[in-house]
C-alpha cells in the first residue's frame, strides 16, 4: 500500500516535471509545477514530515507559484520556441544523453547495503511541537538570520520592481 502511494506520487511528480520543461506555454509550465509540488508534499507526508508537507503546499504551491503566475500574466508571455531553441538540437540531445548516463551510473553505484540503517522515529516525529522545539533551541541563530534575509529580499524586490528609485 505504502509502495503504491509512493509510486503514484512519484510518477505524477516525474511526469509533471518532465512536462513542465517540455511545454511551450509558461502558464502550462507553472500549473504543472504546482502539480509537482503537491505530489512532493504527499511524499513528505508519507515520510512523516507533516509540518513540512503543509508548508510545502502553503509556501510553494500557494505563495511562490501564485507569484510566478502573476508575473506570467502581468508580462503576457508567449513563447515561440519550446524546448528546442537556437542551440543545436544535437547538442541538447547529447547533453541529455550524457546526463542520463551519469544518473544510470550513480544508480548502479548506489550500494543499498551501505545506506544508514533505519532508526525508529520518536512518537512526535515531524509534529509542529517537535520541530518548534529544535527550531527555537539548536537553530535559533539561523532562524533569526532568516528574518534578516527575508527583510533584505523585500527591500530588494521593491527596489528592483520600482520604475524609479
Amino acid at each position, binding site marked *: 500500500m*505504502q*509502495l503504491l502511494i*509512493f509510486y503514484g506520487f*512519484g510518477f505524477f*511528480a*516525474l511526469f509533471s*516535471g518532465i512536462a513542465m*520543461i517540455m511545454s511551450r506555454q*509558461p502558464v502550462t*509550465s507553472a500549473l504543472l*509545477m504546482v502539480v509537482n*509540488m503537491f505530489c*512532493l508534499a504527499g511524499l*513528505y507526508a*508519507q*515520510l*512523516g*514530515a507533516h*509540518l*513540512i508537507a503543509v*508548508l510545502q503546499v502553503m*509556501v*510553494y504551491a500557494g*505563495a*511562490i507559484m501564485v*507569484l*510566478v503566475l502573476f*508575473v506570467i500574466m502581468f*508580462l503576457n*508571455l508567449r*513563447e515561440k*520556441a519550446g*524546448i528546442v*531553441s537556437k*542551440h543545436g538540437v544535437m547538442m*541538447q540531445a547529447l547533453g541529455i544523453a550524457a*546526463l542520463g548516463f*551519469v*544518473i544510470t551510473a550513480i*544508480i548502479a553505484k*548506489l550500494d*543499498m547495503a551501505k*545506506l*544508514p540503517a*533505519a*532508526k*525508529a*522515529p520518536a512518537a512526535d516525529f*515531524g509534529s509542529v511541537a*517537535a*520541530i518548534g522545539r*529544535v527550531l527555537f533551541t539548536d*537553530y535559533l541563530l539561523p532562524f533569526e538570520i*532568516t528574518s534578516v*534575509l527575508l527583510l533584505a*529580499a523585500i527591500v*530588494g*524586490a521593491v*527596489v*528592483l520592481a520600482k520604475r524609479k528609485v
Partner: protein
Amino acid sequence: MEMPVPLHHYLILSGILFSVGVVGVLSRRNAIIIYMCIELMLNAVNLTLIAFSRQLGDLNGQLFTFMVMAVAAAEAAVGLGIIIALFRNRQSVDVDDVNLLKG
C-alpha cells in the same frame, strides 16, 4: 521500525527530478521557466533531506528543508523582481536577449 518504502526509492526519484531540473535550466531560454526549474532542483534536494531525516529518525533534515523554503521564498521575490526589470528594459524574458555584459 522499518521505513514504509525503502530509502533508495526516494533517493533515485529525487536524483531523477534534480536531473530534469538541470536539463530544463540548460535547454530552456525563458527566464521564468529557468526559475521554475531551479525550484524543481531545490525540491528534489528537499526530498532527499526529508527521506534521510525519516531514515535516521533525526529532525535536522526537516529543519534544513525549512531553511531551504525560506531562502526559496526570498529568491522568488528577488528573482521575479529581476525578471520584471528585465522585461521593462528588453521587452522580453529570453535569456539570449540579455547580453549587456558581453564584451
